[in-house]
């Protein structure tokens, strides 16, 4: 995956908006003044970063926990390296999976290479959804676990200084 290149002005824009847009009539103008470029350029740069995929989306970012989705299960799977991309794509497309990533294993302590985050209003609800994933992966998943969060100790937006 090639990382699209962000120039210093792009980075400044990302940094200026990391705490969220000001909730005022003309948020792009406020951002433009902060960064020191015209408003039209702010909009054009954000559109380009969206098109390139450097920005995934712009919108209201929900806090699942406060919306009643208090159970959050990180399901982790050991899938063969040959098939992980193909299967990851299938799991990532499931509507109840909010994030789906391939990560390296850390043997012997950590054999899992596919991560799928599942949110639900209860642990039972999460477990039902994990069972759907298990059904899809079948014997391709050599082992899996679901790690429930018992406490959120810190949650803040992206911070780059």
């Amino acid at each position: 995956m090639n990382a699209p290149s962000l120039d210093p002005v792009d980075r400044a824009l990302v940094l200026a908006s990391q705490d969220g847009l000001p909730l005022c009539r003309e948020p792009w103008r406020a951002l433009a003044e902060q960064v020191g470029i015209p408003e039209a350029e702010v909009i054009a740069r954000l559109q380009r970063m969206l098109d390139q995929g450097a920005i995934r989306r712009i919108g209201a970012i929900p806090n699942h926990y406060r919306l009643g989705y208090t159970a959050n299960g990180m399901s982790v799977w050991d899938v063969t390296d040959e098939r992980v991309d193909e299967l990851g794509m299938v799991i990532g497309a499931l509507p109840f999976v909010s994030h789906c990533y391939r990560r390296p294993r850390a043997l012997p302590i950590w054999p899992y290479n596919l991560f799928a985050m599942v949110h639900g209003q209860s642990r039972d609800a999460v477990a039902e959804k994990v069972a759907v994933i298990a059904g899809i992966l079948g014997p391709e998943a050599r082992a899996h676990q679901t790690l429930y969060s018992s406490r959120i100790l810190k949650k803040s937006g992206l911070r780059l200084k």
Partner: protein
Amino acid sequence: MEDLERHLLDDFQRDFPLTPTPFADMAQRLGVDEAKVLETLRVLKAEGKITRVGAVVRPGAVGASTLAAMAVPEARLVEVAEMVSTYPEVNHNYQREHELNLWFVITTPSQERLQAVLTDIRDRCRCPLISLPMERSYRLDLGFGLAWT
């Protein structure tokens, strides 16, 4: 939850208008006035139902990041968790029910800084620590469909 709150959350997790007056455009689509949209978003933010209105940046697009996990003895968990949370580079920190019981995301401007923070945390905590940087994302982040009941 009010209808307007629902719509603001569900309809605008993506495709937030990139126009000079986005909140007025949202208001027009929802058939309410701009002031009402702004006020409702402020309330949602104050109540913590949304963390912000803004951009979600693809991991790795700016700087470096990783998901780290540590196996912390139960008796030291609070102390170690607090210490990890004090790093400004740590933006999520969760206790999870597993031998690896502390999970946190580190985001830094550079790979060098990321390694330095990992080493620092490992040295100070003296607990087994693994680093699992994202290699590939399989989900185009389209937001999260909320099941309204």
